[in-house]
């Protein structure tokens, strides 16, 4: 890690902490985006096949 930073003797702990946070939050964001795409795809699929929710005809 050479960012022009000298984080002292415990640098590995600092990098580990920031690393874990990045990985976990990154994973959550990726899951949210992928899950959203999946649901959108399925909705579009239904729309293409002409399946409608009943409330759609009410509106």
């Amino acid at each position, binding site marked *: 890690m050479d960012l022009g930073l000298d984080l002292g003797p415990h640098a590995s702990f600092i990098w580990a902490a920031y690393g874990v946070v990045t990985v976990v939050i990154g994973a959550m964001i990726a899951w949210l985006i992928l899950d959203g795409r999946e649901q959108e795809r399925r909705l579009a699929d239904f729309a293409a096949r002409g399946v409608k*929710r009943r409330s759609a005809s009410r509106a």
Partner: protein
Amino acid sequence: MQQGYLLASAGLPVVHLRFSAQPLRSFSMTQTLTQRLANPTRFMELSASVLPWVAGAAALVIGYGLYLSFFVAPPDYLQGETARIMFIHVPCAWLSMAVYAIIAMSSFGLLVFRHPLADVSAKAAVPLGAAFTFLALVTGSLWGRPTWGTYWVWDARLTSVLILFFLYLGLMALRSSIEDEALASKLTAILALVGIVMLPIIKFSVNFGNTLHQPASVIRAGGPTIDTALLVPLLVMAVGFTLMFVAMHLKAMRNEIMRRRVKALQLAEVERAQASQLAAAE
């Protein structure tokens, strides 16, 4: 069934009619208010326009906060560079509690006001809250090793966050092990409210137990009052993480609403197929 189906097809959980056996006195009043504010379709439109702005703001603020915490904030005069872990640890710890409060409020909204979005909000927030609690524990332990010389101490604060994590796990486990989704929502809401009542008692008991068992080795948490040079980056990061949570929560709620619509459409399709089969048989 028919009525329940109608609601399900509007993207709402089926709960609302099936459990209307005990009507609320103020039902009609709250109904108009919540309908205006909490119609899922309206929510989808509103959140779609708000989400990019919140997410963008979160990215900017966290970026600025990271810059401050690595390049501007001086090393702490007691702990040196390791104090930089604080800038991510404290926001995670703050969110771990704030998210539980949101879950409890949503659960209350579901049980008492039958707010159509309350359950969506509670369900979407639980995994996020669990993740932030996990991060608070891990970063705390990585901070503890260089400063206290150990990854874990049975300090009151650590212990109560660990138990909070177990409460989150319980919420997820209960919801996932009941097949009827509407029932699972309501039972999980009850558990969340029991949890919010118990949390202060747990916190109190852990504090009490600690003063008895533990020597004063750990009462450094927080230490001397924080210097503004450290406080400003911390606040910036806290605001950034909160914005990020809001964006994630909105996105998770959108996903959940879409998932429920997909489910309603599948039901509609199956029902139609059955009807046409019946017609063909006759």
